[in-house]
């Protein structure tokens, strides 16, 4: 009579839940009733009944079990002392366990902290959870629809679900009149009542009032705490004084408290009359109490009349009302963002199961010790408690380390980036509960499960096994499956890391010899008359084209004016415009070579203005650069780089060859004119991630409304930023300097991100490899111990070396092979995912894959060598002795 006659999950449940003195009898009676029910009502209904009964039995006996087992499972100082001794005695297993669990908990807690801190932090003031962003999105044309003053005022008037609705525009402004102490800052021109929504008292002075925005009222500003400190030296009498903001002397009317930001962090506030506002407005509102987002959306859909110049009658437009801290995320999408956490918890669980394998193998070797303890009167819960305490010690340590490392890493990251929204990455109670939950999960998987399995056999069996040097603990299909999962992760991540690493880990921009440290890059936007894009605006096509050309020509004139003035700045030696510089996002075009039998191919594409190549120290290797008269559309010339000549023209003379270049979206457009190659420059790193596919074409920079400007000279390039903003504003108040950064920062940013990704893959893959090898080693070793007698008898019956090797390696070999196969599939999936990244990743590389397979084979052999050696050294006499 045995509980094992029941289905395995039921047997496991009952073996834990029922008291030992009645367990077998209850199992017997349940089996009798189950058999009868199966006969009468069918297998499925009988199985459901059995499961329900088992759960009910478990619940009914739970109070008795807790009362009886509780004292036995209570940890004592002796337990902890023994656990500590056991942990110290096995440094390799301890280190492996600690490192893998720490990494797993670190990753899961970091993911949790990041997502919860970013998405679920309401603005930290009264009623902050009711503050929303209001946006229209044109799904047909894929862009956000601008809202103008008239539409804003109509919505403000009509929307009843909103307590308040305010508008704002974002601007870069130079703060501080003294050129030596000024800086570019972000400001919002905002409705006077915007700050009132936040219900926060200013530290000094007052909030704006309607009187501040009437025509003829003095220009005023409200300062954030940081700017009050930076620009006024925390002057307590600043209110009423004037400060140069955006070239205007504005009276400071208030200073907000430290840490306050609204609707984003790190802003100055300039009240404006939205009725007179020119250009696009952004809307932020506060819902009335008890109003749901759905209700507000429904009302907005009725009230809103999107700008007809941006939305045609057939376009699908969504009216978004979203919480301030998650402007792009609605309730359904939050679920998608939770998925990464689930994935990280899954990876942690796989790591924990690996630790479970190690513990299982270790417990199996301790059969005799456990049996003796049992024989001396220790109950099963007592022994389980002792075994679990060893794992618990490591889990607690790993959890503390993981949480600490996660907080540290997030602090470092946050200190380096300017977060635009309300975030709170501090250690919240919810994070502590989450981490405790992870610790409980890991303890259950890595501690309780192996301990229960190890103490399952009766003390007699265990003692017998222990004395003859074998173990009664069996390793099931689940254990094997987990090893396969581990090997899969190991192969997949290592392959991906190797392929990524090839282009990223060894990558440096140095090889291009670009003067990155002394060059500043700025993106300049000249605006655009949106009505020209509206087919329903009633503008005749000829007029539309003429106005578009005129606008672009004007933009080019302003661009030249900016260039002339920036070139005069102190320390500046060269200024050049282009559509992109090294480190900017990739732009590609289809290139057809006249007279070539090769199909058209994509190549990197850039537009270069005057002085572009000189600025990046690129010599024209063959031919010439663009002439001054060639910077207009239809000049019919193009320059290419060396890789283009090598790969696309087979190294032949490029000068005079003709190319047809068409945008990535319309390959091989026969309407496009042929252009002639006039010069060749070196590879300037337009596709640094994959130098083998670096062919690039450069066309003269046309008249366009958004360009990048590179400024090179002596000294710190950062000091030119305020001057450039000032110059652009002086030339035209609507010109926006959208961002500036040094070329070095621009080039290093993507490299740093992808290097980080490559290193993360490498670390996870290597960790998975070591864990897999350790698991296979431990389990195969334990299996050899368990089979000592059988192997001895085989030897006695004349089995040669090879059959023994086969029988020992069959299982581990199958696991490795299955893992390698699935790992190959995972690699393909990961590399397919990598294609969405703005970095070229090779889809296959036999050498790299061979390296991974080689590493796997070496690790597998290393893991199996010792157990195999032990199996081969078993002699028949050993088998007799253990009996």
């Amino acid at each position, binding site marked *: 009579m045995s509980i094992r006659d029941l289905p395995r999950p039921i047997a496991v449940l009952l073996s834990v839940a029922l008291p030992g003195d009645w367990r077998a009898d209850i199992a*017997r009676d349940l089996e009798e009733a189950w058999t009868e029910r199966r006969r009468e009502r069918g297998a499925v209904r009988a199985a459901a009944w059995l499961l329900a009964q088992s759960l009910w039995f478990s619940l009914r006996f739970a109070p008795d079990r807790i009362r009886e087992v509780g004292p036995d499972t209570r940890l004592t100082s002796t337990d902890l002392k023994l656990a500590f001794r056991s942990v110290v005695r096995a440094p390799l297993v301890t280190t492996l366990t600690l490192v893998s669990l720490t990494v797993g908990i670190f990753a899961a807690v970091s993911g949790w902290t990041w997502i919860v801190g970013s998405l679920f932090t309401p603005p930290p003031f009264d009623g902050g959870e009711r503050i929303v962003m209001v946006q229209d999105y044109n799904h047909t044309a894929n862009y956000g629809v601008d809202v103008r003053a008239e539409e804003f005022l109509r919505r403000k008037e009509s929307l009843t679900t909103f307590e308040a609705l305010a508008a704002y525009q974002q601007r870069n402004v130079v703060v501080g009149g003294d050129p030596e102490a000024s800086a570019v800052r972000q400001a919002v021109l905002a409705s006077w009542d915007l700050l009132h929504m936040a219900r926060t008292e200013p530290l000094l002075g007052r909030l704006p009032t309607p009187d501040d925005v009437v025509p003829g009222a003095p220009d005023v500003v409200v300062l954030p705490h940081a700017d009050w400190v930076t620009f006024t030296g925390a002057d307590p009498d600043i209110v009423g004084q004037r400060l140069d903001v955006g070239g205007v002397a504005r009276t400071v009317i208030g200073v907000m408290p430290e840490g306050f930001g609204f609707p984003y962090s790190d802003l100055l506030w300039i009240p404006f009359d939205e009725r007179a506002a020119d250009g696009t407005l952004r809307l932020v509102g506060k819902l009335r109490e008890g109003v749901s987002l759905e209700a507000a959306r429904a009302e907005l859909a009725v009230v809103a009349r999107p700008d007809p110049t941006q939305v045609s009658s057939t376009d699908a437009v969504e009216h978004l009302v979203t919480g301030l801290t998650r402007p792009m995320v609605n309730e359904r999408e939050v679920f998608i963002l939770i998925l990464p956490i689930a994935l990280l918890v899954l990876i942690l669980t796989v790591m924990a199961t690996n630790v479970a394998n190690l513990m299982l193998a270790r417990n199996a070797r301790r059969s005799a010790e456990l049996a003796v303890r049992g024989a001396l009167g220790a109950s099963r819960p007592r022994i389980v408690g002792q075994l679990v305490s060893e794992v618990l010690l490591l889990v607690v340590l790993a959890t503390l380390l993981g949480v600490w490392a996660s907080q540290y890493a997030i602090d470092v990251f946050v200190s380096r980036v300017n977060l635009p929204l309300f975030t709170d990455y501090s250690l919240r109670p919810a994070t502590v509960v989450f981490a405790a939950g992870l610790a409980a999960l890991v303890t259950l998987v890595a501690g309780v499960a192996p301990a229960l399995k190890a103490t399952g056999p009766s003390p007699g069996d265990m003692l017998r096994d222990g004395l003859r040097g074998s173990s009664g603990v069996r390793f099931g299909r689940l254990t094997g499956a987990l090893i396969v999962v581990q090997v899969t992760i190991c192969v997949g991540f290592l392959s991906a890391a190797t392929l990524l690493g090839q282009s990223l880990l060894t990558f440096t921009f140095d090889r291009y010899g670009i003067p990155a440290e002394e060059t500043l890059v700025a993106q300049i936007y000249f605006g655009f008359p949106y009505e020209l894009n509206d087919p329903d605006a009633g503008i005749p096509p000829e007029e539309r084209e003429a106005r578009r050309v005129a606008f672009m020509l004007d933009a080019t004139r302003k661009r030249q004016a900016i260039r002339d003035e920036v070139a005069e700045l102190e320390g500046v030696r060269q200024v050049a415009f282009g559509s992109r510089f090294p480190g900017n996002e990739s732009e590609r075009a289809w290139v057809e070579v006249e007279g070539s039998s090769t199909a058209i191919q994509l190549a990197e594409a850039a537009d270069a203005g005057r002085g572009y190549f000189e600025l990046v120290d690129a010599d024209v290797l063959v031919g010439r650069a663009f002439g001054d008269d060639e910077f207009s559309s239809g000049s019919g010339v193009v320059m290419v780089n060396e890789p283009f000549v090598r790969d696309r023209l087979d190294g032949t003379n490029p000068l005079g060859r003709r190319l047809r270049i068409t945008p990535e979206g319309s390959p091989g457009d026969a309407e496009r004119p042929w252009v002639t190659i006039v010069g060749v420059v070196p590879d300037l790193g337009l596709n640094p991630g994959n130098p083998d596919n670096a062919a690039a074409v450069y066309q003269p920079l046309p008249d366009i409304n958004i360009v990048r400007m590179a400024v090179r000279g002596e000294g710190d390039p950062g000091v030119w930023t305020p001057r450039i903003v000032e110059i652009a504003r002086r030339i035209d108040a609507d010109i926006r300097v959208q961002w500036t950064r040094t070329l070095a920062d621009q080039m290093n940013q993507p490299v740093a991100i992808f290097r980080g990704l490559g290193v993360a893959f490498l670390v996870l893959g290597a960790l998975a490899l070591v864990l897999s090898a350790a698991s296979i080693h431990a389990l195969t070793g334990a299996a050899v111990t368990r089979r000592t007698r059988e192997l001895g008898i085989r030897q006695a019956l004349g089995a040669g070396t090879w059959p023994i090797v086969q029988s020992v390696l069959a299982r581990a070999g199958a696991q490795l092979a299955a893992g390698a196969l699935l790992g190959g599939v995972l690699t393909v999936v990961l590399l397919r995912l990598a294609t969405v990244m703005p970095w070229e990743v090779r889809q296959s590389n036999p050498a790299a894959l061979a390296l991974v397979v080689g590493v796997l084979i070496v690790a597998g052999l290393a893991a199996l060598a010792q157990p195999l050696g032990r199996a081969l050294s078993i002699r028949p006499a050993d088998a007799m002795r253990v009996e």
Partner: protein
Amino acid sequence: MPKDTLGEFEALVLLAALRLGDEAYGLSIADEISRTAQRPTGRASVYVTLRRLEQKGLITTRHEDPERAPSGKPRRFVTVRPEAVALVQRSRLALQRMWTGLEEVLEDA
């Protein structure tokens, strides 16, 4: 050390075991209570109660001869001890005394 009083369900289990005599074991006791007392009886409750009664020393248990077991798996039969019979009797007397004089009230209700 047996307790002086019985819970209602404990009394029902003991009475069912007495009615079944040598055939009293977990399943048959649950069936007997369901059939005779005409109230749905969970098997788990019966086993929890049997174990408690055994710990109180009110019943003893024995395994049947495996060769005589229909499925080859011996059942665990229950024997009610004299102390338990005395407790059941005391319980019945207590109830009877409480009933006395209430026949009219309870029968009308």
